[in-house]
């Protein structure tokens, strides 16, 4: 079971509280987890990745195990603590600065 933590606004859109738990088939990659999130919550399509190009939106970040995975390719396998459910995969709204 993959644990995913969504930012507040996306939790509101998806009508969920707290962490989301998802079954994701092997191989568990950055892209397959994002696809699983969007399949479970279609309202989030376009809000994490562009509808057409599937590129990460500029001010969305992906963190896991104290690492920034935002710039990794979609086929990158996620770290073992994430795939085993020990650590969550974090989808984060980037800092606004100011």
């Amino acid at each position, binding site marked *: 079971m993959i644990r995913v933590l969504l*930012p*507040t*606004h*996306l939790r509101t*859109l998806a009508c969920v509280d707290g962490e989301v738990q998802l079954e994701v088939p092997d191989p568990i990659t950055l892209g397959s987890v994002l696809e699983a999130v969007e399949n479970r919550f279609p*309202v989030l*399509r*376009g*809000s*994490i990745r562009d*509808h*057409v190009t599937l590129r990460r*939106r500029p*001010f*969305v970040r992906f963190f896991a195990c104290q690492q920034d995975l935002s710039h990794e390719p979609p086929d990158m396998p996620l770290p073992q603590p994430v795939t085993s459910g020990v650590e969550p995969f974090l989808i984060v*709204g*980037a800092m606004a600065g100011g």
Partner: protein
Amino acid sequence: MSRVRLLVGTRKGAFVLTSDGKRDKWEISGPHFAGWEIYHIKGSPVEPDRLYASQTSGWFGQKIQRSNDGGKTWDAVGDKFVYEGQTGTHQWYDGTQHPWEFKRVWHLEPSLKDPDTVYAGVEDAALFLTRDGGQTWQEFPGLRSAKGNLWQPGAGGMGLHTIILDPSNPSRIFIAISAAGAFRTDDEGKTWKPINQGLKSAYELPDPTAEVGHCVHRIAMHPSRPGVLFMQKHWDVMRSDNAGDMWTEVSGDLPTDFGFPIDVHAHEPQTIYVVPIKSDSEHFPPDGKLRVYRSRTGGNEWQPLTKGLPQSDCYVNVLRDAMSVDSLQPCGVYFGTTGGQVYGSTDGGDSWTPIVRDLPAVLSVEAQTLP
């Protein structure tokens, strides 16, 4: 007794303000979609409890929300806005050509006849249509063929912000785009022509009378006279009596003719309202006095309306989509400010009262007159 509902979009959410026909006591609900920019909300003229809202965020993109109960509950519908065919390019800030890129929906215009049909004006400038209540959207690519390669975004973005459906001719639609101008279709959106003859932009364009490139801020029309259009341009208030084929300036005795909104009285097609703003470099009212100006002659002769509005130390702006009228007797006029106030007048503008004072910056106000 009739009721009035104001649909208010702000920088940090949507608010729904409702009152009975007296319009002296208002209930305020919101924020809906707290934290999101709500560029525009508008109801279907034929099914007023059917509302559509443009919900947008620099982080999480575009959402479209639909309500079937007058804004009590909402459902996200489709938000996939994909340009048709070859995207093409427009002028970019550095003089190069730049591909069209979708950024957000500025304005939603429900059909005059069908609650499931809605037009959406977007940035980068284009017009989209849904016929299934917002689930899917298709572009009118012919608009970008109207010299779109020459359009160039201004500092506020290249947004399509005005959509006017001609009640006497279903094939005719008027639209306006920031820093591109006004356009008209007479064949239901297949082809478009620029309608900017008579506009002069001496300080904004190298050719002051260019066919496209004028920064039109807003156009208004009274439904009983669909060939008469009123325009607040970047500078200049303009009027056309032939559906946009030619424009003449009607700024007349305004203290400044820069501004954003323009609207028409519900029962007097010659009575129009603007909010003069000092200049394009100082987006606030002249002398710190918030004044709506009314012309009862379709322009040229203007009267300041100040009763109930702050007449000192006021430095708010009123954005292009933030003025609206109801259709009660007497006509109600409403506008919202970047300071978060929504003002209302129940006597056609003679006097004003703040309905609410401390909302987030107001982006849009739409009035609905309900049975």
